[in-house]
């Protein structure tokens, strides 16, 4: 028994070392960095303990950036649930052949750089773009809408980029479902709707949960969507960090922002896990 445990320990050693070097160490480095400060020359880091960076985040400008990011992340996730759940669910109900095609089409955009795909959205959303053109032709609007470089444009871009993750997680959950369960419910006196909400929906929750996590976390940090479709007008935490690292050259402050982002996201996930009581998540631990 003990011998086997020891053998097992040796087996996981490479993984442990890998994790230590590539995950734990950089994270620890970032923690230290966040308590340091930018050197007065403007380049490099001055290694002296300070809470200045964290104090600075409490400034309304940065605090509001966090609120804005959270709001966007929540709306993105909510829209993704509304669109992605039915998407994944009905995909799972297709015939085996159509299923394969549907998954392929859903994965297809992944083969193209998402930056390029977002530039595609600029063409669609601009003043004389396809969306406005169609709406005008249908006489739904009198003059072109200013969608591009606005909050809705960012939201559209976010939902677009993250939708496959939600759809695929729900799909993987629904795909494993025993459809005779729905028949059993209907046999026992349930209408289609009741059968869905009492049997099918609860059993696809693991997929929905992992979909939520897979869309919520990235949507807190996807800065380039806001940059491209928001026209730099709306600043998110992600873009703030990126800016501090590159143009601002203030790595310690960027590290502090990243730490706060990490803590906020973890807290929200912890709260969420507690509320939904879900230990089992589809695909991820």
């Amino acid at each position, binding site marked *: 028994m003990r011998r086997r445990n020891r053998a097992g320990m040796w087996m996981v050693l490479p993984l442990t070392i890998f994790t230590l070097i590539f995950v734990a160490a950089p994270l620890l480095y970032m923690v230290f960095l966040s308590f340091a400060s930018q050197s007065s020359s403007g380049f490099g880091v001055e290694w002296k303990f300070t809470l200045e960076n964290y104090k600075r985040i409490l400034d309304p400008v940065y605090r509001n950036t966090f609120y804005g990011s959270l709001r966007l992340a929540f709306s993105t996730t909510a829209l993704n649930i509304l669109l992605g759940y039915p998407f994944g669910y009905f995909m799972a109900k297709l015939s085996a052949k159509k299923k394969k095609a549907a998954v392929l089409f859903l994965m297809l955009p992944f083969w193209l750089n998402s930056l390029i795909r977002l530039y595609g959205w600029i063409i669609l959303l601009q003043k004389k773009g396809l969306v406005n053109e169609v709406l005008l032709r249908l006489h739904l609007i009198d003059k072109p809408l200013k969608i591009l470089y606005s909050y809705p444009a960012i939201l559209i871009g976010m939902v677009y980029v993250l939708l496959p993750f939600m759809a695929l997680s729900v799909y993987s959950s629904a795909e494993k479902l*025993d459809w*005779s369960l729905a*028949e*059993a419910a*209907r*046999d*026992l006196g*349930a*209408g289609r709707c009741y059968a869905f909400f009492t*049997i099918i929906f609860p059993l696809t929750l693991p997929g929905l949960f992992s979909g939520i996590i897979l869309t919520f976390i990235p949507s807190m940090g996807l800065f380039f969507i806001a940059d491209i479709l928001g026209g730099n007008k709306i600043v998110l935490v992600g873009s703030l960090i990126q800016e501090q690292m590159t143009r601002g050259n203030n790595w310690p402050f960027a590290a502090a922002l990243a730490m706060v982002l990490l803590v906020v996201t973890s807290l929200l996930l912890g709260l969420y896990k507690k509320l939904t009581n879900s230990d089992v998540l589809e695909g991820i631990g």
Partner: protein
Amino acid sequence: MKNKLIELRNLTKNFDDQQVLKGISLDIYENEFLTLLGPSGCGKTTTLRIIAGFEEPSDGQVLFNGIEISKVPPYKREVNTVFQKYALFPHLNVADNIAFGLNLKKVEKSVISQKVERMLKMVGLSGFENRDVTLLSGGQQQRVAIARALVNEPKVLLLDEPLGALDAKIRKQMQLELKKIQREVGITFVYVTHDQEEALSMSDAVVVMNNGEIQQIGTPTDIYNEPENRFVASFIGESNIIEGHMIRDYLVEFDDFQFECVDKGFEDNEEVEVVLRPEDLDIVEPEHAKITGVVRDITFKGVHYEIMIETEKRMYNVHTTDYAPVGKKIGLLFGPEDIHVMCKMGAY
């Protein structure tokens, strides 16, 4: 006379281009244990699903107490189903699974728990209320599935190969129990299986199906002893099937000999097929029998020997407790009541 509960009238069902039911007509009576028996793909499950309401027939009628119901959704029918793989709700415990139908009908909580308890007692799972259904054995899950269906007090219980996933010993035990439960609750069971032994040992009536058509309807004894055609004879039990012709009523000729039999109603000289069940044949000294042959193979089967006997015309399969060494010349003896004459079947 028992009351007709369900009448199927000339049901057909097409899936895409394939016709899986080719005109099924069947009466199902009250308090009857009726089995749909046939090889896979014969349409037995489709027939059951039409009765349950999961499929609509392409043509034909389903009458329930004389009222057409083929367009009525499953939740409005007075039938409940026990599914092949149980289809228990994995996120509900045993009691909540059983109470599912009652909760839907807004039955009072105290009544529900009483009924659940009574059902669990009947299927032999008293005290299992709070168990996790996914942790039960196959046999226990099956019992919960039966309780879940019966607690709604349906007029008919439909069972779709419910014992298929269980091992042989538990299957035997569940067969007996199902029969007992059926007598206890006194409702109609419609049972689908491909296992002929299961069908024969449990049913009041057996419907043998093949290729979307009913081959024969009858009691287990009828089906076994008086198969109507070659398919029924070969599907149910082992048999020697021999081509011959009726000389006249009560006299049949095959393998160049004439035999007295108990069958009548055929035309004189009509081409027929004769079934001789292996266990109805005896081996005797050659001079005591018309048909003689040589033992080619003998296998010990526990209760009996299976002996392959080669005669001038064919190979006979004989089940007997007597022993005969390979190569020995022997005679085959059988009485008039052992000969079962059937109409000749077209292409099979």
